[in-house]
């Protein structure tokens, strides 16, 4: 359903800061794939997600979703296919607006916005229902400004917003990295539930190797703007941390003593 063919992205071309972030990357996802993405700092993981979401255009190559060429499509148009959660909890929500207003904005993803009411009564009850299973008490605080919520609450809300209008593709960029371990676990299990429930095709970046092994049906490892490892099916299920580290060492010129670099 997602087909990336030979994309390149270089930042600050022609300056001393020139940096090739993605170099000739190709990737094809099947419907319902839940892919975890690992790789050391600067490997180009976020850049890959930004390229798919359309934060900027790639230098060359082609990106297709459901056989539709989106390579030149601006970000807000791609949004009708894509749901997204960022690493920074502040980035996925509008902090001066209410919880229900944020959800209402998200549920109109891919639609024209007219002079109709920004939120209806029926929506309100629906949102309360959706928030209840999170067990964060947000269902009683629909008219609280999102800026007053904790990081974990905001990420859970962003996750709900990203999936409220079933996206063709869900992009998660270390969305639990800024949270304390307990909250991170909670948000991660909510993620897993939502992805399974709607059978969402998902790309999830993580720095936690164990999570990368535990979640999803496929794992890719990136290094220097390329995919150097792609494991799925039975092989992925039996994968151990040590195996991953060994594979990384043999595939890249960097050497890892432990999983520190990947975990950091």
């Amino acid at each position: 359903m997602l087909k990336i063919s030979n994309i390149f992205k270089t930042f600050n071309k022609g300056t001393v800061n020139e940096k090739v972030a993605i170099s000739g990357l190709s990737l094809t996802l099947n419907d319902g794939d839940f892919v975890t993405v690992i790789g050391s700092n600067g490997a180009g993981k976020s850049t890959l997600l930004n390229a798919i979401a359309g934060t900027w255009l790639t230098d060359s190559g082609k990106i297709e979703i459901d056989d539709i060429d989106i390579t030149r499509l601006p970000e807000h148009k791609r949004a009708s296919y894509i749901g997204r959660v960022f690493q920074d909890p502040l980035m996925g929500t509008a902090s001066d607006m209410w919880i229900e207003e944020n959800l209402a904005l998200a549920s109109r993803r891919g639609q024209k916005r007219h002079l109709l009411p920004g939120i209806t009564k029926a929506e309100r009850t629906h949102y309360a229902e959706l928030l209840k299973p999170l067990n964060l008490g947000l269902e009683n605080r629909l008219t609280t400004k999102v800026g007053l919520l904790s990081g974990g609450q905001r990420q859970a809300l962003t996750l709900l917003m990203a999936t409220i209008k079933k996206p063709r593709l869900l992009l998660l960029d270390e969305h639990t990295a800024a949270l304390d371990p307990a909250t991170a676990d909670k948000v991660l299990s909510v993620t897993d539930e939502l992805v399974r429930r709607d059978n969402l095709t998902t790309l999830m970046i993580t720095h936690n190797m164990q999570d990368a092994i535990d979640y999803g049906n496929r794992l890719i490892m990136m290094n220097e703007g390329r995919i150097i490892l792609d494991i799925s099916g039975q092989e992925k299920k039996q994968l151990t941390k040590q195996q991953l580290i060994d594979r990384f060492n043999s595939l890249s010129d960097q050497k890892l003593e432990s999983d520190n670099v990947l975990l950091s």
Partner: protein
Amino acid sequence: MGILYGIMALGIYITFRVLKVSDLTVDGSFATGGAVSVMLMLSGVSPILSLLCAFAVGLLCGTVTGLLHTKLSIPIILSSILVQIGLYSINLRILQGSALKSISVDKYPLLINVRFVSRTILIGALIALALIAVLYWYFGTEQGCSIRATGNNPAMAKSNGINTSTTTLIGLALCNGLVAFAGGLMSQYQGFADVNQGRGAIVTGLAAIIIGEVLCDIFFKKGSSFWLRLTFVIIGGIIYYLIMVLILWMRVDSNDLKLFTALIVAIFLAIPNFRKGAAV
């Protein structure tokens, strides 16, 4: 006159507080509104229709700034200054080359004027109330919400499918539409249109907004509702005007007036910081 400041400030509120950008087009479009309104009335158009035309021309001014910004990627401050400067010449053209064009209240059925104060206050207040109601409704609609989201968090807006270029454009247009409308009212009130009418409009508008917000926070708790905040923008405009009157009454040299305006705005900008205890 204070109410008129407030109405103008409502427009500036859209860019400054909702979109969170500084749009300096208003110094030009305020005068444009006045010029358009007066010239149309002189050629026989009714005062109300002339105000609507001023609003429409204001929309256009804001759109130009918006296009310079979104299509040509010129920073908003710069593109709005460019439009403001350009408008000065255009305003002179509209006024057929003279810097000042007066319109007699005896010969034309002006909506409001210095001559009949109580009627002016009544009509001004009604217009202000209507505008607050319309803005309150508008920013609750799908389109209005997407403008608010754009100002609040552009990354979030885009990833939720909002075309932030369009919303920025609409916001800038609406802001200048309202400001030009207020400019038209001002020229009816004063009985003349002046190319320099808009000088310092942005500062006056900011003063009204900030005075209003400080007072709103004092009388009501933080996080008060949107229509209350808008009402306090009008109140801020009135208070700003009263302060100006007071300063003139104290026989301050009128050449120093702008200096005092700047001082007042600086003081009110600092007050919220003092209250937070965060001031140096």
